[in-house]
């Protein structure tokens, strides 16, 4: 069994133009490993939404993907303002995004629900004023 492949990206806050690069890279890597394309897309969506969240809400942070033989684990970590009410944040359509973000077509309140829908395992922990850690796992041989 080979060592897991780690990929790490520093995501800058409010940099809308760069958003998507990490997700694209991760998708490309999974495809090179021969992972089924539907799974690649799910992992790409999780990464992309996590990336967007870091850009819009957290003023940047770290995005980490660890690929092992049977799964990909995606972690987004930030030192942003934290989420006051996680349950509410998980509701489709709920958003606290700035007007700037919404004008650019982001912040429709679909991010976290979308991540959860595309993950096989999902956790999120947030402390006000300290930051948020989100972990999502997608298994390769599970539908």
């Amino acid at each position, binding site marked *: *069994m080979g060592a897991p492949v780690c990929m790490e990206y520093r995501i800058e806050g409010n940099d809308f133009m760069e958003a998507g690069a990490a997700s694209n890279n991760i998708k490309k890597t999974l495809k090179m490993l021969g992972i089924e*394309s539907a799974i*690649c897309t799910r992992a790409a969506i999780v990464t992309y939404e996590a990336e967007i969240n870091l850009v819009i809400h957290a003023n940047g942070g770290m995005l980490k993907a660890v*690929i*092992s*033989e*049977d799964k990909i684990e995606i972690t987004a970590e930030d030192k942003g303002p934290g989420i006051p009410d996680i349950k509410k944040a998980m509701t489709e359509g709920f958003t606290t995004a700035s007007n700037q973000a919404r004008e650019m077509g982001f912040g429709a309140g679909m991010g976290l629900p979308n991540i959860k829908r595309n993950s096989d395992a999902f956790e999120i922990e947030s402390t006000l004023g300290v930051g948020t850690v989100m972990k999502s796992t997608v298994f390769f041989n599970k539908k």
Partner: protein
Amino acid sequence: MEHSIKISKEACQGCVNCIRVCPTEAIRVVKGEISIIDELCVDCGECLRACGRSALGIYEDDWNKIKESSPVNIIADPSFFAQFCHYPKPDNLEEVLLSLGFNTLIDEAEDAFDLAAYAIAQFINRSPKTSLPVISVYCPSVLRLIQTKFPELLPRIVPVLSPLEIAGTLWRMKTNSDVPLTLLAPCPAKITMAREPQSKNLFPLTNGVTVRRVARSIMAEGDIHVESKAVHKKRNNRWIQWARRYGEARHVQAFSDRKLTVLAVSGMNNTLDILQELELGRLRGVDFIECRVCDTGCVGGVGTADSRFLANLRLINMETEWEITPKELSRVEELYAMDIWSITKEYQPRPRLPLSDNVADAMVKLQQMKEIYNGLPHIDCGSCGRPSCQAMAEEIVRGNGSVTDCIFKLRDGISALANQIVKLSESQPHTFKREGKK
């Protein structure tokens, strides 16, 4: 995968302009000559635009030979009608073509494009909201891009044949003939389509030549005056608008009962962006996506004759009747019932080969690839014949090439060797006298 890009080995100087613009990284320079990885080529023609030495061209059939045969049956891409400043109205051009002895299938084209637009509108209205937006692949390169880079989007493709093919089929049914039919195409992708049709058993199109070749040969005849002015019927010109961005979407709207939300983009970068956004599920609320890999649409194809800006302007100024008459509607419904418009072969993905067919093995190779990549200069200069350092690292682990293909690595190697030589030359046998010592 078949494609219609032709390489002239004599003209190619082995520069790397083309390999860097290729959106699927399908071109390599091997031993000073370019070669195309056929499975990856999507026929977009970006490499032709980048080549300053005309070393890349379009592989087309011989128009000089075709035009000597009799009768010459042609189906012209809509973009053909926007190429001539002499004949700004399609009616004029129709007469000119007739006077030159060409049988141009305009009646069939009008029917076929109406039928395709109608079938697309029907498909959109029938689709559940969750499977919208659907995407048109009138541009054959878009289909190939989806097959190679975005296979998850295959179910979103509208299963309607290219109207150019449908027009050929309609004509064959009407005339019951199997004489040659030549497509005038604005790009390599549509020429490939003539060779590799999507339709059932018929081979509706026989030859493919570029719009440029034919338009130039007509321009060379000078200003042709045609006597009779009353032979043709009134044309609606809707189908010709497909040559510019939004033309197809506008036509589909004309057949739709509700107001459609459409996105129409052109150009390679825009196309790649919109496909990626669609794959990431960002385009909710959109019904239909029209994309063309060439800027401004088919008038921007690499096989056209005139400026895409002028051609686009002519289309904007062209009188076009968007109102569908009841007679036209019943005609299109009659054709729709004949089922000559739907695809019969399912579109298959054409994914790239993984590093290995076993994930564990592929992961080992991926780590090696990362290490090799880290040692490369990351400036994507192309001197190794590959489009990027990443592509080079990948090829090395796949067993095609060595690190010394990189001129920077090679230079490092030589400099290390040179240092070693200097060091060796400084060490002297003990019996030699040291310099400066008498």
